[in-house]
């Protein structure tokens, strides 16, 4: 069939029209238009559009970018920007520096797992979840990130400005029920991310991060319990969840 492409004002956009097979679809038409005009007809475009294959052979599918993939990018960047800002403005460290070897180990951890997750979230054949699930996931995740920030602020206020404070029992907010509420919120916010993006790689990342943090939490919980055993006028450390209510 012959298709003429004309603007609202009547001007012929594609001179001579476009020849399409009788079973062509709107997608074929879109493709043909932007091949002819090199102008972008509404839809995400490939950087190098190739001539339409017509209806012989495979259907030429364009790379589609789902909204969730873009939001995942924003979410990931938000998380790590927040973390960097916290390092400058919120956290109070008992030691000025950590050993250089940590840099290699930490970078290897973040970059390997980050690229592993990103590969699948941004894959051309990525299958998004339902819109509702995505919203629930990111919404829950953002909520947990905000809680996480609040936890860090609470922890900061436990230490005096010259960084001299010893250990104290964290109080307030979630710390009343769980020892390492900052880790709790961190784990649950990654859970939110995974609910929204649904990749096995993402869940693997979640499990690895959670186990590392759980190890730290167990040590911290033990330390606090030992320190605050109720003797010598020290307040007794009440029984709490270690890291992940309602599981552990």
């Amino acid at each position: 069939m012959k298709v003429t492409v004309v603007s609202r004002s009547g001007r012929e956009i594609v001179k001579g029209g476009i020849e399409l097979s009788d079973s062509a679809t709107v997608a074929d038409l879109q493709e043909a238009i932007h091949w002819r005009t090199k102008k972008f007809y509404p839809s995400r475009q490939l950087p190098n559009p190739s001539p339409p294959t017509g209806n012989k052979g495979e259907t030429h599918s364009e790379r589609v970018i789902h909204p969730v993939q873009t939001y995942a990018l924003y979410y990931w960047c938000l998380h790590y920007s927040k973390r960097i800002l916290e390092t400058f403005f919120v956290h109070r460290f008992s030691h000025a520096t950590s050993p250089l070897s940590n840099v290699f180990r930490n970078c290897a951890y973040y970059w390997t797992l980050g690229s592993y997750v990103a590969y699948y979230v941004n894959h051309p054949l990525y299958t998004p979840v339902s819109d509702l699930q995505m919203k629930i996931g990111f919404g829950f995740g953002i909520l947990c990130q905000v809680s996480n920030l609040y936890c860090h602020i609470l922890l900061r206020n436990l230490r005096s400005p010259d960084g001299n404070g010893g250990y104290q029992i964290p109080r307030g907010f979630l710390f009343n029920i769980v020892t390492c509420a900052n880790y709790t919120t961190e784990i649950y916010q990654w859970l939110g991310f995974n609910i929204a993006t649904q990749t096995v790689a993402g869940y693997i990342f979640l499990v690895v991060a959670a186990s590392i943090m759980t190890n730290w939490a167990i040590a911290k919980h033990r330390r606090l319990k030992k320190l605050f055993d109720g003797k010598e006028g020290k307040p007794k450390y009440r029984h709490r969840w270690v890291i992940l209510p309602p599981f552990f």
Partner: protein
Amino acid sequence: MASFLSLLRRFYLTVYNWTLFAGWFQVLYLVLKTLNESSHENVYNAAEKPLLLAQTAAVLEILHGLVGLVRSPVTATLPQISSRLFVTWGILWSFPETRSHVLVSSLLISWSITEIIRYSFFGLKEAFGFAPSWLLWLRYSTFIVLYPTGITSEVGLIYIALKYIKESEKYCIRMPNKWNFSFDYFYASILVLGIYVPGSPHLYGYMLAQRKKALSKSKRE
């Protein structure tokens, strides 16, 4: 009660070790018999049943380490068993084209001799509380030859199988799918080959250290 449990443990481990000894002895017997009567191409078929049984049963050893039935650390047994299971099920059983290769013979001979010595050593220890010094010597010396031959056979067979792995697309998970996951057995196998590079000298070094400890200790006793 405690001594009953410890007796039970001894009994169970004695049975376990001697059963696996019998299995691997059968493997070695069938391999040598086949090499004598026909050729290396038929070795796998002859030894398949006892091999699959004996090698897979070794998974129990991870359990033994986890629950504390035996002293060996899980971190040492896990890589060893994983590589064995990978070659046995993931290469030989899954890709019949590899079975006729001569490396199967060297593989099974290396594995079975090592396991015969190891299981009889532990079998005697659990049953009688001691093992003869010549067996101790064998256990901590034969690896010097058998580890290189075994590892070479494993690496060689994995390498040979690569072609068939790629063609068959077996065990591969492709995109798109609901869980946005993919797995490529070909590249995973190449990764495994890569692990052999640092893993083998590490394991060999560990065994050499164990040898020093075990043989000097027995000299002092």
